[in-house]
């Protein structure tokens, strides 16, 4: 242990008592953090990376227990009493969380919440704390801090709330800042701003940062040291350069390879046009009533798209840009104005009138956990559409089709008698894809189908989608904020902002030579994270 090591974790184990017996989430982790450096703990969900830091902050759930040793400046902090621990956490070691929307108390003004660490650690009064809070808000780039100090959290955006959390973390000049996936819940451009802010603050204030993430791009850009965790163990650690250029452990290599690669060729020039939207408008009423004037939100403002057979149109943009709404309007799942034509004839509006078209126009949702009914077997879920579109089909025939569809998406046919909760996120998304594939569609709207999945699983889903497309000449309308996935899957890109197309063109052109400033910002935010390339 060298002199400037400020945090040293030895043989840390975290065990949770559950109804199925004890579960060991962290299995003997060793980590060292030197002052002023950035350590990234990388791993997929369930790898124990968050629980490692929760244990040292004394924040484990009630059924969790930590053993081993965590030394902060040669002082044991693991399993300290709350009172003793409270002298360190929030003062010398601080933390920001994955959920900026809910990490602040919704019932108090942010000024009051920022004052608390100052009052209880630095002994300031509310009044003494105020100038310091204003200074902190300015430091983290909150505009107009004199006004914002009296705002409630719900009056701020996710990015601003995360800035407030960072301000809270910095309040008492900490030695260590633990950032637990601080940008996962934010839009890409906001992500980049928050990361830049953290890097900049580290440079100016000199604290050490423990960065917990599943996003290797971030690690590559910021970390000095990297620890790769898998199933509660550190499988590889070293300097960022070493880990990225010469990964030793196969799991690390797998993670590095997991970033989707390859690109899609455009469809043949004579590929028939399947789905065409002309000047599609979608407007949502935002209330109003008997006495109030009604107000409207224009979610999609006159967008025209043309999807050809075998084509994948990638739609990118920040949340609220209208990309999902556009996808739904093209499937007539939401009321819209303008023309939507299928094979040259206009699609009808009513639910009943649309039914004959539905099996050719399918949709896969983002959330593989919420979109499968928990009370139906997988077989029932994927054959449900057949009951409507091919009512004459016999039960045995449906059963065979279910087996085929599952095998098509890389699952075992025998899984059709099991329930969704028995499957992982990636498997569930395969089930959702099987549910659409069984109807033999020609167009599928994919609404962020990989966003809720780990990188390595994402890659498998991307491969699956690609194979299905080649085999069945499918056309995809692929909605995502994840540019690396879009780049791998789409041959044509639409960039949306506030309901309008700001730029569109062939994938290569949009990625390599973006014309619009907004596109460039989006690209930079998502893709400029390449500091070390792996030696291949």
């Amino acid at each position, binding site marked *: 242990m060298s002199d400037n090591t400020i945090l040293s974790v030895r043989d840390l184990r975290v065990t949770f008592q559950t109804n199925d017996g004890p579960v060991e989430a962290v299995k003997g982790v060793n980590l060292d953090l030197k002052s002023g450096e950035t350590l990234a703990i990388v791993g997929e969900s369930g790898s124990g990376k968050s629980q490692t830091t929760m244990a040292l902050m004394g924040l484990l759930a009630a059924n969790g227990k930590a053993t081993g040793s965590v030394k902060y400046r040669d002082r044991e902090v693991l399993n300290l009493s709350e009172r003793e621990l*409270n002298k360190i*956490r929030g003062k010398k070691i*601080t933390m920001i969380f994955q959920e900026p929307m*809910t990490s602040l*108390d919704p019932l108090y003004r942010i000024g009051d919440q920022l004052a608390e660490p100052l009052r209880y650690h630095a002994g300031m009064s509310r009044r003494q704390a105020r100038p310091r809070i204003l200074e902190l808000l300015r430091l983290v780039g909150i505009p107009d801090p004199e006004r914002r100090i009296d705002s409630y959290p719900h009056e701020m955006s996710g990015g601003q709330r995360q800035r407030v959390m960072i301000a809270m973390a910095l309040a008492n000049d900490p030695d260590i800042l633990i950032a637990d996936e601080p940008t996962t819940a934010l839009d890409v451009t906001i992500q980049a701003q928050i990361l830049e802010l953290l890097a900049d603050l580290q440079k100016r204030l000199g604290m050490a940062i423990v960065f917990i993430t599943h996003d290797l791009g971030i690690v590559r850009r910021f970390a000095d040291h990297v620890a790769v965790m898998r199933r509660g163990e550190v499988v590889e650690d070293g300097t960022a350069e070493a880990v990225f250029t010469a990964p030793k452990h196969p799991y690390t290599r797998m993670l590095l390879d997991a970033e989707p690669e390859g690109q899609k060729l455009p469809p043949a020039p004579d590929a028939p046009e399947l789905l065409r939207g002309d000047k599609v408008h979608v407007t949502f009423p935002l209330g109003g009533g008997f006495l109030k004037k009604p107000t409207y939100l224009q979610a999609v403002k006159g967008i025209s798209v043309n999807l050809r057979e075998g084509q994948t149109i990638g739609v990118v943009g920040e949340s609220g840009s209208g990309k999902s709404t556009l996808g739904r309007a093209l499937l007539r799942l939401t009321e819209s104005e303008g023309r939507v034509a299928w094979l040259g004839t206009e699609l009808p509006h009513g639910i009943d009138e649309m039914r004959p078209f539905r099996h050719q126009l399918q949709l896969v949702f983002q959330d593989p956990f919420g979109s499968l009914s928990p009370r139906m077997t997988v077989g029932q879920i994927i054959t449900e559409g057949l009951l409507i579109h091919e009512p004459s089909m016999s039960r045995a025939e449906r059963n065979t089709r279910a087996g085929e569809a599952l095998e098509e998406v890389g699952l075992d046919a025998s899984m059709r008698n099991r329930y969704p909760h028995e499957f992982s996120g990636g498997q569930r998304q395969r089930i959702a894809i099987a549910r659409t594939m069984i109807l033999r569609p020609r167009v599928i709207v994919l609404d962020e189908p990989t966003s809720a999945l780990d990188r390595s699983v994402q890659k498998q889903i991307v491969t699956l989608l690609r194979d299905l497309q080649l085999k069945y000449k499918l056309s995809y309308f692929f909605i995502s904020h994840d540019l690396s996935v879009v780049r791998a899957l789409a041959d044509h890109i639409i960039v949306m902002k506030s309901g309008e197309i700001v730029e569109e063109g062939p994938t290569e052109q949009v990625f390599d030579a973006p014309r619009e400033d907004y596109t460039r910002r989006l690209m930079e935010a998502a893709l400029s994270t390449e500091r070390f390339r792996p030696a291949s």
Partner: protein
Amino acid sequence: MLGYTLRRMASAVPTIFIIVTLTFFAIRIAPGGPFDLERPLDPLILANLQRAYNLDAPLWQQYLMYLGNLIQGDLGPSFTRRDFSVNELFAQGLPVSILLGGLALLAATIFGIILGAIAALKQNSWLDNLIVAIATLGITTPNFVIAPLLSLFFGVILGVLPAGGWSNANPAYWILPVITLALPQVAVIARLVRGATVEALRANHVRTARAYGLPARVVVGVHALRAAMLPTVSYLGPTAAALLTGSVVVETVFGLPGVGRYFVQGALGRDYTLVMGTVVVIAVFVVIFNLLVDLAYAWLDPRVRYD
């Protein structure tokens, strides 16, 4: 906020109008009338009585007449207590009911919150289990069991408190009725607060407070309990209206001059005006307390804004 309050008050008028209308015709549909005694009255006397109370007029005329009087604040004469108007009956009884109900509400809120918070903080300990068990008992035991038991034990066996009766001046007479009224509410509120606090303690912002080393009293008292109050406040609105308008069981067991019994007595005796009066009073209380709840909610939770 003032505009919102006034609008809410104004919107209560049609609500009460509908309640009054429905009740007026519903009770007239019920067979029998206020002067149907076991031994029928002389037809001539009956006719005279009915003329005196305008019961011989067509129903719609009676209805309009009632509405006209109601707008002037006159609830009419009681049919069964012939020396009193309904206004006089409420003027005597309502203060008693409000006093007892108010004290019970206060006690229930204080003890319910304390017990619920303790149970939540010591979740799954023996203390938590005990509080939950007692709360369940409190919810499931009807007040017509609790009231006589209390009266028997403290009034008769121990003889420390009056077993029944009423005195405006001597609080000893108030204690047992207040306990009877409060106990089930303590139980309900304790369970509500326990559940809400358990949930609030798991909230991300409470984790933040703990991560920043704030003392336990701040984590719990400032960040968890305020959020936990919200469901309790919602519950208190209708509960307050119910408690303050009296309880027929408690008034009967302890022999109290409250207004709770009027509803039952009025309905059984076909005392049309008394029933109507009770309905109007309860409706007004419900409207007022629901409004107070909404205002309190907005005060507790800045995300709720009325304008």
